């Protein structure tokens, strides 16, 4: 089946059907009947807050009563604001809670019991900082964040065999901690005879929409035109790299449409979108042909097209208007490329030099590590509602929950040479990150944007798979280039996994990297998979090698067996009542009991959540 990439057609609402006359009683009756059932979508802060409030009582760790110390500028902003507004907050997380969280956030893996035991036994006051440093310097850190960026940049699909190059390119710049502005420059300016040899060319090439399958007219775009592809890509990178959602103005002016949606974009015109898109107006992706067949995934990427033509037909958008070629102008500043400067080089320079680029990225990382962004949605900033010194008119409010913090983080990012690793470390070393997810007293929704507690999040799809694999000592086997790797997070593309693993990961929200991320449809399938999927049941089988088999053979006694199962699975020791339940299970049938116990732990909330 041919994939055409994502193309948008916003419905153009030109006229409303008049609402037919309805009796008052009918309307009320319907409203009453349906009252309890519909719940409009909540903002992510409320969702995180609500999820945490409900899951938290099922989680083991209580906080510690140590005083909160401001460890870096993040704490000054977070606790400063709470103290100014008299908002109570959770205590610090205990060591077990912190350790598991730090391991998962930094490396995407649950703690290895021996390393965990060492950490827990360490009396040093600096041990948490040291743990963060160690974890962010590990190979697993590279694995996890390579996967994260592969999801973000939608690695796979039409990249074809170029995916392996892209994969190793990401691993390389993460390992070297290359400045992120340089990385993005590469992504936007890649060009070359073959996308198989230039990693930066793959980001745009990936969005190519296939033309006719006809060697006579290889460049014919009868289904989606080149300018449509450029438009699509412009919308994509604006969301991913600038946190701006320009999809709306790709079809119409903001005025008359976005008054209730985005005050910044309401002033923008479709022409300005064309000018932004025009940075890629000259860029071509040419499919290579070999022996009469398409070398379907190898492309030449260059800048030889005439430019962004406003008269070009659109297959999927409201028809363009205007004459001639649009000249590139950066949407946020109106700046044009310098004399003689390659357009894409200009775009990379302007974009990576703009504060919004830094804000958007640190906001994304904050969202990843703290539950939700300081600005939400993370790809939909409203720049007219950013500055507290220039507040928007009522009933609008400022969009960021803590603009001073976001700007301070953006500044810190730039001052540290755009180091991604530095941002992760700074967030993780703050006391704000180290708060417990357990909140004593009555939680109010209004506390949520203060980050008054740590929010839980469910493990991501590859994290969950890998956690199950690690807890049971039974890694998977996936292809990465010519190698075999054991963790799902080491795979360049989830599609390379077997059917069971793919379906498991899809159900737990793995994006297919073709469409922009969409809402996971939750279903009982998730609960069922955890109960019955081979991903779980095969692994708790103690007759096929792995942790349980080894523990059953080598444990000194039943008590130690139960404790080891707990340490390997949920990274802590069992409480006395839990120990008793475990021992009882072993009594009936030692082998089966051990399997059942581990199964139960794999199905419990504390395993599924990163808290």
């Amino acid at each position, binding site marked *: *089946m*041919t994939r*055409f990439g*994502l193309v*948008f*057609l916003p419905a153009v609402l030109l*006229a409303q059907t008049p*609402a037919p006359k*309805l009796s008052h009683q009918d*309307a009320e009756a*319907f*409203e009453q009947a349906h009252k309890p*059932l*519909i*719940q*409009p*979508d*909540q903002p992510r802060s*409320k*969702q995180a807050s*609500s*999820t945490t409030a*409900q899951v938290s*009582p*099922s989680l083991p760790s209580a906080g510690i009563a140590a005083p909160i110390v401001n460890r870096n500028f993040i704490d000054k902003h977070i606790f400063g604001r709470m103290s100014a507004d008299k908002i109570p907050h959770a205590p610090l997380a205990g060591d077990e809670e912190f350790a598991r969280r730090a391991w998962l956030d930094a490396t995407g893996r649950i703690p290895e019991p021996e390393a965990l035991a060492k950490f827990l036994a360490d009396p040093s006051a600096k041990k948490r900082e040291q743990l963060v440093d160690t974890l962010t310097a590990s190979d697993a850190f590279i694995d996890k964040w390579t996967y994260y960026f592969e999801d973000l940049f939608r690695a796979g699909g039409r990249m074809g065999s170029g995916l392996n190059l892209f994969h190793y390119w990401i691993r390389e710049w993460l390992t070297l901690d290359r400045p992120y502005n340089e990385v993005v420059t590469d992504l936007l300016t890649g060009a070359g005879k073959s996308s198989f040899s230039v990693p930066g060319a793959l980001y745009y090439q990936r969005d190519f929409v296939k033309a006719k*399958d*006809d060697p*006579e007219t290889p460049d014919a775009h009868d*289904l989606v035109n080149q300018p449509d592809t450029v438009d699509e890509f412009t919308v994509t990178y604006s969301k991913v790299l600038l946190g701006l959602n320009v*999809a709306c103005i790709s079809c119409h002016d903001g005025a008359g449409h976005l008054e209730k949606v985005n005050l910044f974009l309401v002033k923008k015109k479709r022409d300005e979108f064309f000018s932004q898109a025009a940075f890629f107006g000259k860029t071509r992706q040419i499919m290579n042909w070999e022996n009469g067949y398409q070398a379907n995934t190898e492309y030449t990427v260059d800048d030889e097209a005439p430019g962004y033509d406003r008269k070009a037909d659109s*297959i999927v958008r409201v028809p363009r208007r205007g004459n001639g070629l649009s000249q590139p102008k950066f949407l946020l500043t109106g700046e044009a490329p310098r004399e003689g400067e390659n357009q894409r080089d200009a775009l990379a320079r302007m974009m990576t030099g703009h504060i919004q680029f830094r804000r958007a990225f640190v906001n994304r990382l904050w969202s990843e590590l703290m539950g939700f962004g300081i600005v939400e949605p993370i790809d939909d900033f409203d720049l007219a509602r950013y500055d507290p010194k220039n507040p928007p008119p009522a009933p609008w409010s400022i969009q960021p929950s803590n603009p001073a913090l976001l700007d301070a983080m953006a500044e810190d990012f730039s001052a540290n040479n755009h180091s991604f690793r530095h941002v992760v470390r700074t967030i993780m070393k703050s006391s704000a990150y180290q708060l417990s997810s357990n909140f004593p007293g009555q939680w109010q929704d209004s506390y949520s944007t203060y980050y008054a507690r740590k929010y839980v999040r469910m493990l991501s799809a590859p994290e969950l798979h890998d956690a199950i694999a690690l807890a049971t000592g039974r890694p998977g086997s996936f292809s990465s280039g010519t190698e075999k790797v054991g963790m799902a997070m080491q795979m360049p593309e989830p599609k390379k996994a077997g059917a*069971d693993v793919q*379906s*498991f990961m*899809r159900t737990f929200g793995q994006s*297919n990297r*073709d*469409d922009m991320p*969409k*809402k*996971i*449809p*939750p*279903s*009982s*399938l*998730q*609960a*069922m998979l955890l*109960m*019955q*999927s081979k991903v779980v049941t095969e692994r708790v089988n103690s007759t096929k090698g792995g942790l349980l088999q080894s523990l059953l053979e080598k444990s000194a006694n039943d008590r130690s067996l139960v404790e080891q199962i707990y340490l390997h699975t949920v990274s802590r020791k069992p*409480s006395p009542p*839990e120990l008793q*339940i475990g021992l009882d299970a072993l009594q009936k049938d030692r082998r089966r009991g051990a399997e*059942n116990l581990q*199964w*139960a732990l794999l*199905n419990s*909330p504390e395993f599924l959540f990163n808290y």
Partner: protein
Amino acid sequence: MDKRVSDFLPARRDLLKLGGHGLLGAFASQALLPIQVRAAGRANPRGTARYCIVLELAGALSHIDSFDFKEDAGTQKDFDVRKIKDDLYLPYRLFPELSKEMDKVTIVRSMKSHEVVHFRGQYYTQAGRPLNPAQAPEIPSVGSVVSYEFEKLRREKDTFPTYIGCNLDTSGCGALSTGFLPPRFSVLDVNLKEGSASAPGDAEAMAVLEERYRILNKLDDAMAGSRAGRDRQFGAFRDFQHSAFQLLGDSRWPQAFKMSKEEIARYGDNSVGLGCLFARNAVQSDAGTRYIHITHPDWDHHRNIYNHAVKSNHYIRCNEFDRAMAALLRDLAAAPSPRLAGKALLDETMVVMVTEFGRVPGALNGIAGRHHYNLAYVSLFAGGGVKGGRIIGKTDAKGENVIDSGWKYNKHQIKTENVYASIYSALGIDWTKAITNTPSRRAYRYVDPLGATEMLMDDEIADLFV
């Protein structure tokens, strides 16, 4: 089995009765907010169907090679075209089984889509409206809307989800979410070919599962004890495990997956065959499921459409679909309805074939296939109040343009929106309703007259039923 499962269930039966299956989304439950539903009251839904099964041929069915058959330069010699009746010719080679069942089936030949791209077209056929990226995150699939509408009809003993999908994840857009509707209306997508974990194991596996679940419950209680002084909410998370477990423990669930060799041979051992067989079982068990969406992928024959040597061609796909749909119709027609005297399950079950668009008529393209064609294509309807054996709409000699739309709106071809208006009507749902307090505050109309490129008639296809 059911008695033991009930040992584990909490007292909050009312929550479970709602068929809540979503794992994560429960957490998004807030204090219930009032919603506004505006019923335009222009519709008279017929309420002739209790169930609806939608078969989606993903990839686009060539209309002139199937249910709007045209003899042309592409027609293959081995099609064995036969006259079924007046205006109905079918390639017998492609549809040997359905050829015999056309008295049950009504064909619409005047379909039109504005889409030409798979992802968008398949979104359209699942959501019943064009893709609008501004609104897409909040738009529910039709099945989820049906699930919401039918919530009040769920009985204490209903454990199956109202909306089940078969192989929805093989569709170009995957399974759509519940949008602004609560997650409990989400689809449960079963993948029968891969033997998904939603299929229950045998009695021994169930016994193991029960023992494990017992331990899980004990551990949960043990944790509760250590929560001194804190308000312990009964974890909604556990509610979902309970309802999933309840489903696994309901003996009707493994029954729905039981497929004998004979049945598999009759339906076909492929995604659409097994999907239809499962759908039949779900309908027969009457355990809560009312809407089933089956995806049959891999119809996109841009190249080698009639080439017997390739892995996927028109013959193979047509034969798979033909066998599956015919077996489904026959079995439903043979099964007596437990509710309506003298009627069969087919009389209560609307079966609909949808596809995203057609394929270019006339000569084949340069790679021996047919490209996409949206100006004319076909849809099939049977059961659930549909009067079979008719043809609605007519195309010109080549199958390129619709010359008679076949229904009361002469100037308008029939759209996917009208297909869903008909489904809503058959299910007894007023399709002119709109829900007004959505997150974006745009009214969600069940059938939206504002089409992507033109206004459309937001009406059912009355000619199907009378």
